[in-house]
């Protein structure tokens, strides 16, 4: 037997760089705490600074193109819609005129309120996006299992991800097959609606029949066994540096809460 091959399963998971290799739970702690500071502070200056920080971090980690594409997609509509909606929803006579957009007078206060909201949502989303883009779901679930979460949770999570991929493929195949059989998938809304059901049936029934087989196959592989399980991946134990980073992130969150309380009570 090839020893190198066997040992490859005993080594710690190596994902390429230091950030990727952090334990998923410490990474989640860091990202969540930083993201929550944006929710607590709710100032556009802070929120947008965080967004810039995320972009720099994504560049350093090596996920910039993927990150910016996704971040841009979830932020752009939110950004413009919130600004426009606030101009309609906040109306007071003493608001300060700000700019005139093709004859439509915008006011400063609703504009700032919109920026504060968008920046906190983007500030929080960005941190979680970095977490999800740099952590594999199987590593998150393995870290949770190491902390005592049941293996059924891991199965549900990972199998759901795989099922989505499998079912999307089968949906495309069935859609093409039904088109080939002559079912109209283009045309007015009623025509498209009618096409919907002949596609649903085969997708669901094939998935359901697969479920029963999967249940038997999993049981044959001791899925329901209550004893310890073995893993093909081994996560690096949480180092002291990681604990320090987690503590720092929690401190940042506490500091932001203190700052918020003091500024709300008028001390700052």
């Amino acid at each position, binding site marked *: 037997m090839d020893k190198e091959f066997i040992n490859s399963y005993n080594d710690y998971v190596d994902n390429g760089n230091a950030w990727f290799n952090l334990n998923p739970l410490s990474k989640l702690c860091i990202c969540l705490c930083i993201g929550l500071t944006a929710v607590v502070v*709710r100032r556009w200056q802070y929120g947008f600074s965080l967004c810039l920080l995320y972009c720099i971090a994504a560049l350093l980690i090596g996920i910039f193109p993927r990150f910016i594409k*996704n971040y841009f997609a*979830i932020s752009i*509509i*939110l950004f413009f*819609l*919130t600004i426009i*909606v*606030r101009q*309609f*929803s*906040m109306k007071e006579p003493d608001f300060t005129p700000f700019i005139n957009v093709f004859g439509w007078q915008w006011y400063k206060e609703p504009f700032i*309120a919109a920026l*504060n*909201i968008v920046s906190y*949502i983007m500030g*929080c*989303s960005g941190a*979680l*996006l970095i977490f*999800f883009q740099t952590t594999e*779901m199987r590593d998150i679930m393995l870290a949770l299992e190491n902390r005592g979460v049941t293996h*059924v949770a891991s*199965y*549900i*999570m990972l*199998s*759901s*991800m*795989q*099922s*989505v991929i*499998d*079912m*999307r493929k089968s*949906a495309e195949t069935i*859609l093409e097959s039904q088109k080939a059989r002559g079912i109209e*998938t283009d045309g007015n*809304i009623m025509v*498209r*609606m009618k*096409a*919907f*059901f002949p*596609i*649903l*049936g085969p*997708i*669901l*029934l094939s*998935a*359901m*029949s697969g*479920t*029963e087989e*999967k*249940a038997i196959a*999993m*049981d044959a592989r001791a899925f*329901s066994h209550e004893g310890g399980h073995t893993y093909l991946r081994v996560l690096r134990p949480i180092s002291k540096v990681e604990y320090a980073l987690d503590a720092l992130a929690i401190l940042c969150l506490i500091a932001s809460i203190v700052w918020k309380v003091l500024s709300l009570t008028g001390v700052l």
Partner: protein
Amino acid sequence: MKKDNKLAWFLVPIGVAVNFIFGTLVLMLRLPIYLDCAGTIIVAALCGTWPGVIVGLVSNILNAITDPGTLLYAPLNMAFAVLAAYLSKKGVFKKFVPTLISSLGFAFIGGVIGALITWARFGFDFGSGTTSVVVLPLYAATGLPKFICQIIGEFLCDLLDKVITVVVCYFILKAFPTRFLSKLPLGDIYISDEAKALEE
């Protein structure tokens, strides 16, 4: 007959995939609906509250990978599961008209819980989703309190989607093979009287 509760847990990933795929399919066919909770309702109706709640939660967690904001709306999907399991036990999804009426309940949950979440998320003011197309003119025309407008807007936007969702779920539940239904915790409800008589 002994119920295989494990099978219920194996159905959870299918429920999650159905939530996603129906969403993709309506996009492919360019239909003006979401259908993103059909999997939650089907699993809750067949397997009970908890598997349904898990489907709702997992669907939102997987959605959060590309849009973390959707995580906030997980309670919505979970509440749909609780209602679906309750209605299923009452036999609502066995008949077409009660099923159709149940869409009001789902739309109400979507309206109230959805509005509460949106309200809190957007600093206790109008949200900036697709519902703002209904909410803003409603607010301008009626002058009702903003929160009430948000609830009405979300309810109206949700209603059409939920009517189609429950109709789809009704036909899917009807199409399930008896052999499979008999193994699921709430499957007995959907086994036809003829099939039961045949078994006896």
